[in-house]
């Protein structure tokens, strides 16, 4: 009987003592945390995607508190997060334009320069075969390195080409960062007219290696009444400050590579080349 009593006593006394010590310690060693920090962190999506340039959502919130970063750098949270953060910090809300990633390629380079059978990773493929195994020096390689960094399940390789789901994309631009070919670019979510090619080769050469690459024919340029699209270095480039989304260039493009609605519907109609 005595043994049980001792055992229970020792354990409960120790438990109580440790509890008391910890309670006191938490008071003594309390570190002052700005009460706005948890509030700010709660405004953010919490994906810790790193798109803002900080280690995670809390690190960014801390930077905002310290005045090192401005509100609105969180692409994933977008306007809602910026608004909520402005409310916490007590400043005027800033307008944030939603940006999404877009793959500027539809991957029809059907002539591989070399056969690559190594690690299924674009970076590795670029490294091993010089400038990648595809004949087009700018096209999507389709090994899906971008899909591994996307925390929002918004980019997938479909028929050998990476494609962004613009509604799932939060604009953290991790895929843009990691793509070794730099074929993924940020575009505004509302951009209706986009050029889905990154190839700067001359027209004759592009014709040989790709069915739908930009050949720099200038037809879009001639169609445009607003001086918004130009062929620069053999590739059509849109000036969004002038573009009014009339869609005439898209209709005229002989390679059908200018999209009328951000690759979301129109481009899906054009089947990509099987590898």
């Amino acid at each position: 009987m005595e043994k049980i009593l001792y055992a229970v006593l020792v354990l409960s006394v120790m438990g109580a003592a440790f509890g008391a010590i910890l309670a006191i310690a938490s008071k003594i060693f309390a570190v002052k945390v700005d009460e706005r920090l948890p509030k700010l962190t709660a405004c953010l999506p919490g994906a810790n995607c790193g798109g803002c340039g900080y280690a995670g959502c809390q690190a960014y919130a801390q930077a905002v508190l310290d005045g090192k970063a401005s509100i609105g750098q969180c692409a994933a949270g977008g306007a809602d997060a910026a608004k909520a953060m402005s409310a916490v910090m007590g400043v005027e809300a800033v307008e944030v334009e939603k940006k999404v990633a877009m793959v500027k390629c539809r991957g029809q380079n059907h002539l591989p320069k070399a056969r690559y059978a190594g690690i299924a990773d674009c970076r590795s493929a670029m490294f091993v075969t010089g400038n990648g195994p595809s004949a087009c020096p700018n096209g999507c390689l389709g090994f899906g390195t971008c899909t591994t960094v996307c925390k929002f399940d918004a980019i997938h390789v479909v028929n050998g080409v990476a494609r962004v789901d613009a509604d799932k994309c939060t604009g953290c631009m991790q895929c843009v960062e990691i793509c070794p070919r730099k074929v993924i670019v940020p575009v505004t979510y509302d951009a209706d007219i986009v050029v889905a090619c990154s190839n700067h080769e001359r027209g004759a050469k592009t014709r040989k290696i790709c069915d739908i690459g930009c050949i720099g024919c200038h037809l879009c340029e001639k169609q445009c009444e607003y001086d918004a699209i130009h062929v620069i270095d053999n590739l059509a480039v849109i000036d969004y400050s002038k573009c009014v989304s009339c869609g005439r260039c898209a209709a005229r493009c002989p390679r059908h590579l200018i999209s009328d609605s951000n690759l979301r519907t129109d481009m899906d109609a054009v089947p990509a080349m099987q590898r």
Partner: protein
Amino acid sequence: MSTFVALFTISLNAILAENFILVKFLGICPFMGVSKKTDTAFGMGLAVIFVMGLASAATWAVNEFLLVRLNLEYMQTVVFILVIAALVQFVEMFLQKALPALYQALGIYLPLITTNCAVLGVALLNIQNGYTFIESVIYGVTGGVGFTLAIVLFSSVRERLEDCDCPKAFKGFPLALIAAGLLALSFLGFSGFKVFG
């Protein structure tokens, strides 16, 4: 001199021949869980060294001055868990205040270790082996070093396995388990040595 030799024997045993993970199979959970990247594995290892050393000291004292006096040795397991959990909590608070840099470096690994069986294991083994206070602390710290060695080695193996071309059924965890088994086999070679008798 003889104490020095004894301590050296204990250290070498704890690091290689009786490695906590690969020979004694204690602390497998963090070994598999936190070994995906070498730098996180190293952070975990540092935290384990730290906690195992502290826990050895604290539990030795509790055992010697409390449990043995009251003939309550059979309560070692329960009491040690309590002591280690409270200790880790306390150390975490202390570090956050006193050494924020170290706190940042150890990060989430510190609370994770509270329920690590390698830490409880070292406390119980100290008593079983009848170690003195100094020997216990040395055994704890070097046991942590052995843990770090194993987890860092394993994480570098795993980083390479990530990129290998293997059957789909083996991808990821199964392959990691096989690699861990091979690593454990290789560490078995050390137990062939008898260090200083």
